């Protein structure tokens, strides 16, 4: 019996070897723990880096104007007060520009999504001549800094009589976000297996019906995430907003415009006001963002 021989041979390791192996093992464990600790430390530092300013702005926005001007700042908003926010909201032009911002962001969202769905679907499903060139072309829009485009854009907008209009700014924002939206939507469509569409066609759908009944419902979460991304980008965008509007300012443009002429309470309240919508939206879309990056959350 050949299988027996190793049992009769000497013990596998001497005590010294065992000790060496144990040491090696504990070193590996230590290394593992250190790496893990390092990851957590980095995550905590990053979180503080982002959360601290948000916390500061929020605290200040809910303190009395006197406390806002005081130094050192409080860590908690005591005494709690909405005076600062009231003052900000009642400032001339703020409500109006908030409304403008909302309209611009929603319009940008609609335009961008309406264009991104067919474009993304085409990139995901069809092999047409120049497909890769178009994909690259879409991205290259992002390669032009808006500063370079600014003056020609303003000139064209004035010539076309679109200058200082809410809808023209919305178009600009849609153009800025389209590259990202198209690529996100295309990847969402790619992740819907072609067989679903084919099955729908077998069971009585035209291509269009198959898209509406099967592909779109499956892609909606991803499309919604892309749409919300457009909304947040438009809500925060300030350069094009300043450049293309004068009387119909959006909120960030209005705040930026009045910033150097106003006191700390106004700045903090404005900052807080800008912050809230983005936070709310990110809260809603984080599931899809995580999905996009491969983490599955229940």
């Amino acid at each position, binding site marked *: 019996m050949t299988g027996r021989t190793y049992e009769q041979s000497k013990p596998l390791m001497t005590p010294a070897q065992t000790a060496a192996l144990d040491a090696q093992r504990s070193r590996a464990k230590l290394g593992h723990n250190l790496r893990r600790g390092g990851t957590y430390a980095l995550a905590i530092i990053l979180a503080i880096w982002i959360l601290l300013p948000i916390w500061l702005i929020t605290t200040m926005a809910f303190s009395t104007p006197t406390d806002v001007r005081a130094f050192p700042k409080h860590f908690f908003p005591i005494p709690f007060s909405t005076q600062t926010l009231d003052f900000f909201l009642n400032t001339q032009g703020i409500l109006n520009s908030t409304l403008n911002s909302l309209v611009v962001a929603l319009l940008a969202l609609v335009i961008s999504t309406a264009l991104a769905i067919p474009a993304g679907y085409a990139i995901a499903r069809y092999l047409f001549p120049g497909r890769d060139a178009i994909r690259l072309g879409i991205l290259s829009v992002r390669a032009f800094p808006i500063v370079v485009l600014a003056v020609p854009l303003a000139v064209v907008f004035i010539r076309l009589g679109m200058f200082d209009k809410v809808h023209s700014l919305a178009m600009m924002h849609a153009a800025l976000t389209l590259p990202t939206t198209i690529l996100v939507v295309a990847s969402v469509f790619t992740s819907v*297996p072609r067989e*679903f569409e084919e*099955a*729908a*066609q*077998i*069971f*009585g759908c035209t291509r269009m019906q198959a898209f509406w009944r099967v592909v779109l419902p499956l892609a909606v979460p991803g499309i919604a995430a892309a749409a919300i991304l457009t909304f947040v980008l438009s809500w925060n965008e300030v350069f094009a907003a300043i450049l293309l509007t004068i009387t119909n300012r959006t909120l960030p443009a209005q705040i930026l415009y009045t910033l150097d002429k106003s006191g700390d309470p106004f700045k903090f309240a404005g900052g807080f006001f800008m912050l809230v919508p983005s936070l709310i939206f990110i809260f809603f879309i984080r599931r899809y963002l995580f999905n996009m990056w491969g983490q599955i959350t229940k």
Partner: protein
Amino acid sequence: MAEIVIENAVKRFGKFVAIDDVSLTIHDQEFVVLLGPSGCGKTTLLRAVAGLGMVDSGRVLIGGKDVTYLPPKERQISMVFQNYAIFPHMTVFDNIAFGLKMRKLPKETIRERVEHAAKLLHIETMLERFPGAMSGGQRQRVAVARAIAYDAKVLLMDEPLSNLDALLRLEMRAELKALLARLGATTVYVTHDQIEALSMGDRIAVMRNGKILQVDSPTRVYDLPANQFVGSFIGNPPMNFLRGQVRREDGAVKVKIGTLLIAPPEEMRAALDSYEGRHVYIGIRAENMETLDRPADDTLPVKVEVVEPLGSQNLLTTYVEDNMIKISTHPDFPAEVGGQVWLRFPISKIRWIDPETGEAITPDMETILA
């Protein structure tokens, strides 16, 4: 009536010819299996019938109607996909009802048909579930139920069992066969699994490199392969091929394998005559050779190299000249590695193959009829 006729179908993907001038007629209510190794064009052919990939030239007719360039919905077909393609955002009920709703049937009829199909596949308790909460086998059942409920005259199946584990596949195979026999739909079934093909089909179309090599009943495909490829692709173990020399002895055509002289059957003599002085392959199945443990007339002695007990049979491996051959024997047959056994080749079980073309040598029809 739903006869499927494929005429001279050609389909290319760039330079690659996926279907190379294929013609095939599938009779009404017949169950035809398209069998072949991956890349042989069997799925492409099925998709051409389904309307999911139109042919470049040729025609496809279903029930006498030319559907070559019609979209799937106008072909009155139904299909089961390899990875099921069950819609994840719909309940099982809505999945099965999908095609019926597209046809705008009355609600009551839809409910009846869905419940009937679900019952046939034993998933009637799962109608409110979503596919995400089901196992692979259950999803498979939903896919079949959806195809059945649609009640089309033609049912297409693209490797429906290939994603199931072995045991489940075995179970589903028998169940599906019984179910499809009851339905009486014209069925085209694609698979690369020869056992599936042999066990389920009325006829099997064996494909390779975009061509159909043979269309025949399972027994004929197994016993009388049209060529060497079909013989070695179908059957486990594959058909044995031995080199034999054709010569004339005492005025009659004989084929010599090793030390053994075989007299071919009468109807083959004329055909084999033209091979005189050359070689032919003698194709014979592992279970069709007679194995003896002592010398006898008309036998060939061979040395046993490997003995594989498989329970119901013992599989022996030996060599005749350079050709490895596998012999199936009764488990009680006394064979030992290194020992000798004697083989007899029943001439009625031999398939004669042209070694250059690989095609079976066809018997002389006039002799058969005479």
